Structure formats: C-alpha cells, structure tokens
C-alpha cells in the first residue's frame, strides 16, 4: 500500500510491453515495418483510403497477425494476474494455474465440447453456441481448483505439500480425461486437442480477442478491489478476519474471478504453463510483494512476456512454429526448480511442508 514509486516500475513495464507488441506484430513469415502497421491500422479503421497494392499484406496483418498478437498479450495478462491471485489465495509463491489444476480442468471441459459437442451427450450445451467451450472450461477449471483448495486447506491454513499432491492428482485425472477424449476423437478433433494441450496462438481470431478481452477486463477490475484483502491474507485467514475482511467470501470471489479468466483464455488458446509462476516471481524480486503493485504489474509483465515467447515460437523453427506451451515449460520449469532450490537453501522450505 505504501507507494514508494511504483509509477516508475509501471512505466518501465508499459514500455517493455509496447516494444514487445510492436516486435511481435512486425516479425514473422510476413514482416511489417512499424509505419506500415500504422497505415494498415488507419486503413482498417477507415481513416485512410485502402491502398489496393497492399490488399494481401493488409489482410494478413489485420485478420491474422493483429488478433494473434492481441490474444497472446491478453492471455499473458490473464496468466500473470492469475498466478498473482492464486499465490495470494494459497499464500504461497509457488502456485499457478497449471499446478493447481485450473488449466487442466479447463482443458478437460473444453475437450468435452470439442469431441462430444456434436453428440447427444452434450446436447444441453448446444443453446450456448460459441459460449459452450468457455462455459464448460469454466466448470472444469472451477471444479478442479476448488477440489485442490479444499483438500489442501484446513483450519484456515494451506498445506503446500498437500496442495502440490492434490494438484498432481487432479491434473492426472483431468489429463486422463482429456487423453481419453483425444483417443476416442475422430482424427481432426484429436489433432486439435493435442495442439491445444500444448498451447497455441495459430487459431487466434477477433472472436478470441473479444472473449478473452472482455473476461480479462471484468475479472481484472474485480480483482483490483481485493488488493488490501490479498495483503491481509498473507497474515493468515484469522488475522485477515480481525482486520475486518471476510476471508471465506474474499477467497470464493477471487477463486471465481481467477478461474473465469483462466478458463476462457485456456478455452481459446490451450494450456500454457509456468507464465503464472514466473511473472509474479520476477515482480516480487524486482519491487515488492504488495498486491496493490503485483496485480496491475503482473498484467503488464505477463502480456509482455507472452509476446516475447510468441516471437521466439515463430522464429526459432521458421517457417514452422513451435507450440507456445513447449517454450514456456522449457523456460519456466527450470525457473520453478531454481525457486525451490533457492528457498530450500534460505530455509524457506518450511512453507512447502
């Protein structure tokens, strides 16, 4: 709460994000110079007459590149904020949606619709139309997260050892469910599930931008109201209650907001692990564990980091591209192990027992 110049850090993060966005929008099979991108944007908005010689470039930029960049940035913001919120809820620095079952639950829910959506078993989802995937993803994510939270918390305290084991169990069950669905799926569906389990922005479109964008803004604004409560929860649920908060209500609401945005993002782009872990961790080291700082800052850094990863995914094996989740796991997992090792050396290991 004490604002010792967070503004400077926000500014630096915002500049990083803008640079990452411009780079990500410009680099790829088609490359675009910044001036050309600005012109396309103005043409797309109807403020400039369209240049007929550039029809292909413009439509690649406006229909493929731009939605992809925005979906990536929004997903990064969602995962960054989600990691921050979950670490606050579980009062531990090593929690993120991939570990606590949230992503796997969302994946299972979404895979159900992919494979069985046209059959009679899921006939009830048909009136939902294109909302069916995010809706079932939310149901799966919320159920999975709630199980992990309930199992790992007792008497107002979260046992992180139990949390991780419960996360493993729930992830395994959801993974088995998703695996079973891809096994019984007809070929194109199965291929979809596999790609999507690794996380990918290749299918990003303006519909995805709208879905993720709206849920992110709503959930982010909601989460901003709980900055003080998240800080107070660091002291434990009783201490938070004694400071005038209602921990069970705060936890349930944050769990819903968090699950909602993770589910929608996962439904659109698949499972992307470790971003939610790494982003808040960097910010804690950089500045502070004050949630009044972490919540907004993790949105900015999450978005910027996802853009950087996406550029890498596109150029590293060009002209092909790697699924995003592979890169985040390859980079994120060692960082996760490093955090564990370092904390063990510093004697912080008690938080994991």
């Amino acid at each position, binding site marked *: *709460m*004490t604002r010792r110049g967070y503004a400077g850090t926000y500014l630096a993060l915002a500049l990083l994000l803008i640079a990452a966005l411009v780079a990500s929008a410009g680099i790829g099979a088609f490359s675009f110079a910044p001036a050309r991108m600005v012109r396309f944007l103005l043409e797309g908005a109807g403020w400039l007459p369209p240049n007929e010689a550039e029809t292909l470039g413009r439509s690649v930029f406006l229909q493929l590149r731009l939605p992809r960049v925005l979906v990536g940035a929004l997903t990064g913001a969602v995962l960054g904020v989600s990691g921050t919120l979950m670490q606050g809820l579980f009062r531990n620095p090593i929690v993120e949606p991939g570990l606590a079952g949230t992503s796997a639950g969302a994946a299972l829910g979404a895979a159900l619709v992919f494979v069985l959506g046209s059959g009679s078993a899921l006939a009830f989802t048909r009136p939902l139309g294109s909302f069916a995937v995010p809706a079932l993803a939310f149901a799966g994510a919320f159920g999975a997260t709630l199980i992990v939270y309930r199992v790992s918390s007792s008497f107002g305290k979260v046992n992180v050892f139990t949390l991780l084991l419960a996360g493993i169990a729930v992830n395994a069950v959801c993974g088995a469910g998703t695996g079973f669905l891809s096994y019984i799926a007809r070929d194109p569906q199965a291929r979809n599930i596999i790609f999507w389990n690794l996380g990918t922005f290749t299918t990003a479109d303006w519909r995805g931008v709208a879905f993720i964008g709206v849920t992110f803004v709503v959930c982010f604004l909601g989460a901003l109201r709980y900055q003080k409560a998240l800080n107070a929860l660091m002291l434990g649920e*009783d201490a938070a*209650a*004694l400071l*005038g908060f209602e921990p069970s209500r705060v936890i349930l609401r944050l769990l819903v907001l968090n699950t909602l945005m993770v589910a929608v993002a996962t439904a659109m782009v698949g499972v992307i692990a470790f971003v939610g872990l790494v982003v808040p961790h960097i910010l804690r080291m950089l500045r*502070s564990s004050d949630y009044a700082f972490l919540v907004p800052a993790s949105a900015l850094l999450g978005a910027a980091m996802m853009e950087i990863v996406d550029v890498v995914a596109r150029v590293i094996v060009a002209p092909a591209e790697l699924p995003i989740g592979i890169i985040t796991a390859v980079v994120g997992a060692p960082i996760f192990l490093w955090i564990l090792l370092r904390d063990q050396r510093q004697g*912080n290991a*008690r938080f994991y027992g």
Partner: protein
Amino acid sequence: MVELHRVSYRAGGATILSDVSVRFRPGRFNVLLGPNGAGKSTLLRIATGLAQPASGEVRYADRSLRSFDAQELARSRAVLTQHVEMAFPLPVADVVMMGRYPHFGRVPSSTDREIARQALTTVGMAEKSDQPYPTLSGGEQQKVQLARVLAQIWKTDGEGTSTSSHRYLFLDEPTTNLDVHYQLHVLNIVSRLIDAETTIVAILHDLNTAFQFGDHFLLLHQGRVAFEGDSAADLPIDVLERVFDVRARPITDPSTGESYWRFGLT
C-alpha cells in the same frame, strides 16, 4: 468493557466452554490463565468475534458484538497472536500499514502513514521500516506484529470520550517463542497502553510473568471459571495445584517482598 454472558461452546461433541460469564474491565491488565485445553483460546476467539458461541452473548461496552460489522469492529478491536510467518518478503512498513486497513479505502491518508510510523517507533523498530519482514528475527517479527496491532487501534488526539474511543486489545500467548528480553519488552509496551478506555485481555502461559504484569486474573479449568480475582495472592495454592496438576511453592524475594512460584510435578 468486554462482557461474556453465559457463554457456552461445543466442538465435535465435546463441551469446550460451559456457561462462562466474565467481565474484562478497562484500565487494567486482564490475564487469562489455565492449563492446555482449558478453553482459553476458544474463549478469546469468542470474545474477539472470530467464533460464535453456541449460546450466550458477548458485549463490548454494553453493545452486542453481533451488532458490529466486521470493519467497524476492526477499528477498535485488535488481536496479537503467536508468531506470524509470512511467505512473502513484504517490507516491515507495509506489514504495519495493514493495521490501518480498516481505516482507509484504497490509499492510506497522511494520518494513517503517521500512525503506522509512530506505532513502529513505539516498539523500537523504526529503523527497520524498509527491511523485508521474513529477514527479521522471531522477536523482531513479533514486535512488528505488535506495531501493526497498535496501529489498528491507535487513538488520535481529536477523539473525545464517545463510545467510539473504546479500544479492545487481545493477546493470545504473545510471548511464546520469545526470549526473556523480548517477552518483557512486548509486555511492557502493552502495559503502557492501559487506560480507562482500553480493555486488555491476555492469555499468558508463564504464571510468574502473568502475576508480574497482570492485575486481574481469570483461571479457566475444563471450560469453567476456577478462579477470578485481582491479586495472585488471593489465588489458593490448592486450586492452582489442582488445575495445573503440579506442586506449587511461593518464594519471596527478600529485597522487594514480591512472591514468585516454584513448580514441581506431583
């Protein structure tokens, strides 16, 4: 004044508190004593509003505890518990500022900042203001928690003698795990808060420390009040021995005339 009227509490089929009526008055150091499992912590949880009694009522200055909303209550009632661990490296100043959370919206006022600063100075930790909390020693951490609790119920000069100027401070074994220096330091700071509008209730395990600082005693045994009185001298030795299942022998310091207890197993 904090008043418990015919309070009972049950958990898992066992009676933890049975029909306990007790008054904690302001202007003195109320101490809650009793062996493990006597119901002290439960009584404190009920008195602070963390737990609801199965029957009976809690009143703060003649107002039912139920009629307070959580935030309103948090402005006048604070609790210092045993050692609080934090998994995150928050600066000390931010931890103390949490005590002001019930008093401001999104951003602390200059008054809140000033109170947090004064609270930290009161516990002698002003120079550690920017240090990450987890890097402090256990004793220092407890002093920071005390500062947070003091900041929560800090009295500003403008306040008159309205009902809102009443303060309630509860301490649940605040000195467990502290060495003797920090024990005395913490309890001395708390003692200095005693005034006509501040009700202080502490659970203390060390009987000699309790008798040294307390000036009103409530001894709980098996969910009932076994003794209540203003002076340790009034506490019959046989009650003390029976409740704690020990032999107790008073020893008088010839230079001061004060009595201490020496305990042994029966």
